[in-house]
């Protein structure tokens, strides 16, 4: 049984890392702009497809393919913020409508371009195995965990040590005051969307090779990330990290005792419970008038 728990712990940490990438992007966008971007999952999926494109058609190198996917997604993020979300600021209902529209366009657009068949790419870390006792994992498992850890550290340094990062935090905490001290909110919004989309692209480029690249590959990570940022606390970066990793590990371990066809039900059940007991989440701050 300990072997099983250890195996599921590694698997859960790997999936949890992917959720963390998604959750960080969604929490940044929510914290800074108060936009709940349901289209974040399709950006993740586009990251997988672009990594495939860069890997097979352009560079032939997996690290460069990841980088290419991230840069492309960053540009897409800028475009989405400028063309779609900027005009809908402070209009929650229309933001939801627009993100549903984006899901439809992007998901079906990908099918038009790449066809309905799932794509496969198998760069070296997916082919290589690491043996630990009687267990074995692909190297990609640890690549994912490592890359995400580094990205999270880099993001933390960016948010706390750089002028731009400080401006982002300031805008998220106090938009009016940020304007007073000379921060251009529009620039911050664009930057936020850019970083968030690049993180989604990174996630897709990391997970795609391990599994498959297909039009719905972002749906589940998006829903889990959404649960993660709510459980962690809306707008809280540490909350997104703990929430994402927590969901990954708990859902993996839960399958040792609960039938897998009810796994998602458990995650969503916990989410609803959390909202009822502590709607401001683990790390969130209780806002007056809430609950």
């Amino acid at each position, binding site marked *: 049984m300990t072997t099983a728990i250890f195996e599921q712990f590694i698997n859960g940490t790997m999936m949890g890392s992917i959720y963390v990438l998604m959750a960080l992007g969604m929490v940044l966008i929510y914290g800074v702009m108060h936009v709940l971007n349901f289209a974040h999952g399709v950006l993740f999926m586009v990251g997988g497809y672009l990594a495939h494109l860069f890997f097979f058609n352009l560079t032939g190198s997996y690290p460069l393919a990841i980088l290419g996917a991230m840069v492309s997604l960053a540009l897409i993020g800028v475009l989405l913020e400028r063309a*779609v979300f900027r005009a809908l600021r402070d209009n929650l209902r229309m933001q939801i409508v627009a993100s549903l529209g984006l899901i439809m366009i992007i998901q079906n657009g990908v099918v038009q371009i790449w066809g309905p068949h799932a794509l496969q790419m198998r760069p070296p870390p997916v082919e290589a195995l690491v043996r630990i006792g009687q267990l074995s994992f692909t190297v990609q498992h640890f690549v994912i965990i490592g890359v995400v850890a580094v990205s999270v550290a880099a993001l933390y340094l960016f948010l706390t040590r750089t002028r731009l990062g400080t401006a982002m935090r300031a805008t998220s905490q106090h938009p009016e005051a940020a304007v007073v001290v000379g921060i251009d909110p529009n620039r911050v919004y664009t930057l936020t969307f850019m970083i968030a989309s690049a993180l989604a692209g990174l996630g897709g480029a990391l997970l795609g090779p391990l599994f498959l690249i297909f039009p719905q590959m972002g749906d589940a990570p998006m829903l889990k990330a959404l649960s993660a940022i709510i459980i962690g606390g809306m707008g809280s970066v540490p909350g997104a990290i703990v929430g994402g990793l927590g969901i990954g590990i708990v859902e993996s371990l839960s399958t040792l005792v609960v039938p897998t066809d009810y796994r998602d039900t458990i995650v*969503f059940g916990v989410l609803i419970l959390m909202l009822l007991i502590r709607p401001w989440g683990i790390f969130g701050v209780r806002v007056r008038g809430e609950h």
Partner: protein
Amino acid sequence: MTRSFSNLAALACLVLGALAPLIFGGQPYVLYVLTLALCYTIPAIGVNILYGYTGLVSLGHMGFAGVGAYTTALLMKDVGVPFVPALLGGALAAGVLGVLVGIPCLRLRSHFFIVVTLAVGMILFTLFNNLDALTGGAEGLPGIPRPAPFSIGPIDFEFRSLTGFYMLTFVVTALIFALQFVLVRSDFGRSLSSVRQDEALASARGVNVFGHKLMAFALSTAIAGAGGAMKVLFLRAAAPMSFDMHESINLMMMLILGGAGYLVGPVVGAITFIAVPEFLRIAAEMRFIFFGFVLLVLARFAPRGICGLAESAYKKLGRREKTVVGYS
């Protein structure tokens, strides 16, 4: 919203709907697609009460429709309950579940509530799919009977034929439409609108905001349940896929496209989203890409949908006529 515009549009829908079997009697396919559109109009009316009049977004409404659908189907198929009580049973089951979800969750801030509806919808889908013994699971539930025929005096009513079932669906839709009409024109409906526009202000004016939201949510889920029931009775088979997240999102889209907050918004939306693409048989992906762009444009420029656009056109027309009368 202009009352005259709304009433006129509602009247036009009623007359056209009632005459459809005469107009399209020789074209069963048209009648078939119209029936299907009506089956979506009913849950869309439910969402309209919730979103259009109360301002709450639900991304899991087809899950509630599924509760109504499976309840009605099982009551009729396995227990042998007649149509009317079975339909009411389905609506009641969905509505009761709505109350159970609403009591704890409607106190949450609006985006949290959206996430809850999404989560509830996913959980319900899992149950439809996994409870093989009850719902037939993923293989679906075939052999759902159509309502039994009956006679009133010399007139026979039967629902096996397309025309018969169309008329039944039309009557059910018209009743639910009438319910919507009475509701939004009542004091209760006006209070709902005040909640949508400004919750704090409504509360300050003495409106029981939570109570109103709960009532609206319960009605809305019950109506969705009735819609789901009509859909599976029409198809004579139920499948979990008919009640998943994508269907819920499509339902929201339908309403926004047609015009949320308009009496006829759900009708226009269902016809535009279900019937028109089916008639044209546009390839599915292109259809969704097109509707995606339409949504982006609507979100930015016309948040009140087709009805909103029609209303502005109608107003412009009216003004011009008045000008002519005034100065000649």
